């Protein structure tokens, strides 16, 4: 009976109620949305690499190794000798290796030298494989595979020639002009740093550096592509190696072995642990975002309180009527509490729908433009907790008008005049 009264009473104040509902819905959507971005960017971040058991690089800190090998940020202080990689690949415990060689760039995007093994063994997110939007893996010494963002931003298609630049700056004067690469494949968006990378074969990378010493081409030693194909293109060094093991149980054992090698100083890290460490640095900004949207929610609830309190002035009469009919003061207070509950509940519901609709609309552009993979569907446990918190806050702010109504109801006598 109270529900029906509360419902009708709210209906009779449609305009203000709708506005209140809208504010609560918006702030709910904002808060849940920020939480969604927090959770999923963390998830995406953690999903940068999956299925890789160890990342091996020259001796350095785990976070630094992670940054340059997977995120292509900064550069390695030193490299791994090729025969160390060979030895690692030949180790009976090792299932596969993906060598990575960094250092060159193309119009601001990093060029990564690697093997076709990358396309077969690299996994991200929930063990997803890399897939090609167009073309396929390396089929020539001078093949290049483009990340989704590179292809989209720079407008490249299969077969386009690409000249890579020496060094990682945006405008490098040292271009490997004599040996252009040709696009053999374009990857689907992944939400990982690979979207912003150009992948070439290690041998191709070696070829463009023929006749170079200490980062500059030596005069008179220019090599043509045809000559390059005749030479031994086994790389001398790689920057890092991703390692997959036959049995996970071997991970710690091999890691300790690599970290304590005497002949070459190496660092082997578990990607999950290093990602976790790095996230703690990045996560601070996201907490600030959550705080801001929390403030937005409080503003929304304050708006509801204002509407409810303003309404109280016009409800003396209604309360007196209910009193006269024998309605106990606490039930009148309950009625007011019920109204705040209905408002908050409605706001949360609409807010959630709003968020899902927004996500459905923005999912594709967000992934393509920002590499942010947001998935629709059920709320996460933390989001449920946030909903419960909003409901609780709504009820708490409903206590104030309820208390006012209770006091009014307790003090009122019969109405004589309007």
């Amino acid at each position, binding site marked *: 009976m109270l529900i*029906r009264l509360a419902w009708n009473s709210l209906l*009779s104040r449609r305009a203000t109620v709708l506005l209140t509902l809208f504010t609560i819905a918006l702030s709910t959507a904002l808060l849940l949305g920020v939480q969604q971005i927090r959770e999923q960017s963390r998830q995406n971040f953690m999903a940068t690499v999956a299925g890789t058991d160890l990342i091996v690089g020259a001796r350095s800190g785990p976070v630094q190794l992670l940054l340059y090998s997977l995120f292509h940020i900064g550069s390695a202080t030193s490299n791994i000798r090729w025969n160390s990689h060979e030895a690692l690949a030949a180790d009976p415990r090792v299932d596969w290796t993906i060598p990575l060689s960094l250092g060159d760039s193309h119009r601001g995007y990093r060029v990564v030298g690697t093997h076709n093994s990358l396309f077969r063994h690299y996994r991200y997110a929930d063990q997803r494989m890399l897939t090609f939007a167009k073309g396929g893996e390396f089929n020539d010494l001078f093949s290049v595979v483009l990340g989704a963002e590179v292809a989209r931003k720079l407008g490249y298609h299969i077969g386009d020639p690409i000249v890579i630049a020496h060094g990682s700056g945006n405008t490098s004067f040292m271009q490997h002009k004599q040996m252009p690469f040709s696009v053999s494949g374009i990857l689907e968006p992944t939400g990982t740093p690979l979207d912003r990378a150009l992948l070439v074969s290690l041998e191709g990378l070696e070829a463009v550096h023929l006749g170079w010493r200490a980062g500059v081409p030596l005069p008179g030693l220019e090599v043509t592509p045809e000559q390059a194909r005749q030479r031994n293109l086994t790389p001398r060094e790689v920057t890092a190696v991703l390692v997959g093991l036959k049995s996970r149980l071997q991970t710690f054992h091999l890691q300790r072995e690599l970290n304590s090698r005497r002949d070459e100083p190496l660092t082997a890290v578990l990607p999950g642990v290093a990602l976790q460490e790095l996230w703690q640095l990045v996560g601070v900004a996201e907490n600030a975002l959550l705080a801001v949207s929390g403030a937005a929610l409080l503003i929304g609830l304050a708006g509801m309180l204002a509407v409810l309190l303003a309404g109280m002035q016009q409800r003396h009469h209604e309360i007196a009527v*209910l009193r*006269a009919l024998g*309605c*106990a003061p606490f039930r009148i207070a309950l009625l007011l509490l019920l109204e705040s509950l209905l408002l908050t509940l409605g706001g949360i519901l609409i807010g959630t729908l709003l968020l899902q609709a927004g996500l459905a609309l923005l999912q594709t552009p967000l992934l393509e433009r920002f590499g942010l993979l947001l998935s629709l569907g059920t709320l996460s446990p933390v989001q449920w907790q946030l909903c419960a918190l909003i409901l609780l806050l709504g009820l708490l702010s409903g206590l104030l008008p309820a208390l006012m109504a209770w006091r009014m109801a307790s003090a009122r006598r*019969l*109405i*004589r005049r*309007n």
Partner: protein
Amino acid sequence: MSPVLRLESLCFAWPGSEPVLQLDRLELKAGEHLFIQGPSGSGKTTLLNLITGLQPGYNGTLDVAGQALAGLSSRALDRLRADHIGLLFQQFNLLPYLNLIDNVCLPCKLSRERRDAATRSGGSVEQEAERLLTRLQLDPALFRQRRVAELSIGQQQRVAAARALIGGPTLIIADEPTSALDAVTRDHFMRLLFEELEQSDSTLLMVSHDPSLAPHFPRQLHLGDTVSC
């Protein structure tokens, strides 16, 4: 059978002031309608507040529907009011956001006794509400379509009468119910009210300063000539 209303040497005064109300003896039996007349300030409102249990703190005896009000908790007073008293005010006493039927049914939602009585009499609470509204000559087309705020004052007062009557409360208290109505509407209203009262066992206690209502009532009481207690 105990009287519907019984009061003896009832006296009420605000702390530190002269008594505003003094009554030696008054008894109302079931079906006995009483008209209380008196000028402003004669204690009419106070009497109604006392009888409805909304104003505590009096001297003397006051029994409503066989229960002594002095001994009841505020919860029990609310209960008594919901179960046994139908109230009819001057005006503006309907919930503006409900339709006619919902307004009339309201007492039955607050009291099981009146809900049962209304169901016995009309088949269901809503049917009884429709019956009463029809008896009070309201257009059935209005029952669900309109909110009461859109009705004329005369119509609103008839809806309020139906609300006071539903579920056959022991005592109906009407506080200047006709003061906002013109003479023709007023007489029409009174006639309909009495017709319906004859069908039920309810007792009507009406308070007004308007002496022209007096002829409708067999019993009358004048307030104003007070004696000290």
